[in-house]
């Protein structure tokens, strides 16, 4: 299935049955990071690399490479702030979240 055939300009006949999506991982194509005005900030110097923040992120917006997390994927981070609470090292700061 070519998802690019589905767009806001295609007619109803060209949509999939019941709007189903026959492909995995398509949420990567949607920049849900646009939804928020506030973003968490990653303070690498304070990070212990415990990785507790990674699984709690509902948008998989914390990339991990070689067992170490990197800076946020701001294209997909919706700014929910859950990671701020998960971090015991104070390495994630966000306006309005303690």
């Amino acid at each position, binding site marked *: 299935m070519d998802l690019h055939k589905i767009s*806001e300009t295609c*007619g*109803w*006949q060209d*949509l999939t*049955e*019941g*709007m*189903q*999506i*026959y*492909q*995995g*991982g*398509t949420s990567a194509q949607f920049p849900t990071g646009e939804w928020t005005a506030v973003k968490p900030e990653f303070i690498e110097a304070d990070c212990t690399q415990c990785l507790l923040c990674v699984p709690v992120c509902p948008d998989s917006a914390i990339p991990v490479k070689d067992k170490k997390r990197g800076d946020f994927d701001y294209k997909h981070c919706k700014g929910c702030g859950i990671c701020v609470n998960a971090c015991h090292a104070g390495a994630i700061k966000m306006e309005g979240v303690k």
Partner: protein
Amino acid sequence: MGKRDRLSGNEAVAIAMRQINPDVMPAFPITPSTEIPQYFSSFVANGQVDTEFIPVESEHSAMSAAIGAEAAGARTLTATSSCGMALMWEELYVAASNRLPIAMALVNRALSGPININCDHSDSMGARDAGWIQIYAENNQEAYDNFIQAYPIAENAKVRLPIMICQDGFITSHAVENIELLDDGDVRAFVGDYNPQHYLLNKQETMAVGPYAVSSYYMEAKKQHANAMAEVKQVALDVAKEFAKISGREYGLFEEYRLDDADFALVIIGSAAGTAKDAVDALREKGVKAGLLKIRLFRPFPAEEIAQALAHVKAVAIMDRAESLSSQGGPLGAEVMAALYRARSQALAVNYIYGLGGRDVRVDQIEDVFGQLEKDAAAGQIADAYRYLGLRA
């Protein structure tokens, strides 16, 4: 060869379900449909079916589980009535918009309130805009036959929509009548295996069901759904033709009873059609050209065909076993009148509300309806197009 038996409508539908041998049945009991999952769970316990029976905690859960199972690729059915279906309301639309061909045995019962457990059509009529196919039965044989035809209609590649097979609560569901059952093997072969093109448990293809449709997609999704619904009429006729080959019983979009030369006609749904046929016969004996049109397929609504079948009548009474409280009449009345108007019919039309909450309807009452139609036709006009039948005043 078929087997002659005597069964209630509930037992007949439960046997149809056993013969179909579905993959999953989530169900929650509610009068008067309780017997259907009750009989069926005994088939499960006896090892007569391979079905996963899920005794859920509510009808909301029953339809939710049905949606999940059907999306996973399992042939799924359930049964309910009245407030049970009302609790499924949200999920009815989800099942239909996701194009999941779930089959539901609906045993029609009045909606509360006032609370009442007896027959009328307010439950399914209330759900008429949910995007489900709706087929109605006059008796246990039709309920059984319609259920066997349910999946071949619903699962057709042009359709892929959920289907409600309706029968009248208690009157049909609990009354024991003669019936001819088909052989298990014939039913299995007729219904066939379920092989959906896309399903969640397919290891070869990942998929998502029910994505969010923003404003720029929602209308197109509805049009696509409406288009699938428009395909149902022909598919239902094709399936009926195949069904006649194994059963000898013929079905259409509706049944015409002594209608072809009728001056006065009744349009009716469900078990009261049997009573009305007796009234038609009695009037024909007296020389009155009475006839009847019994709706089988209500969703989609075969408007052009109904208007065509009524083209020659002088006056028609449209019988609603549901109030829509619009101050104009019931849902069937509105749809048949719209069909007649679109066809530029000259027939006088009147809408009767009858049989609510299980109120009995008698042959002499239907004869009175025809008598009134004759008077209306003689007067050349209908002064009050919204009437009650059998109401104390």
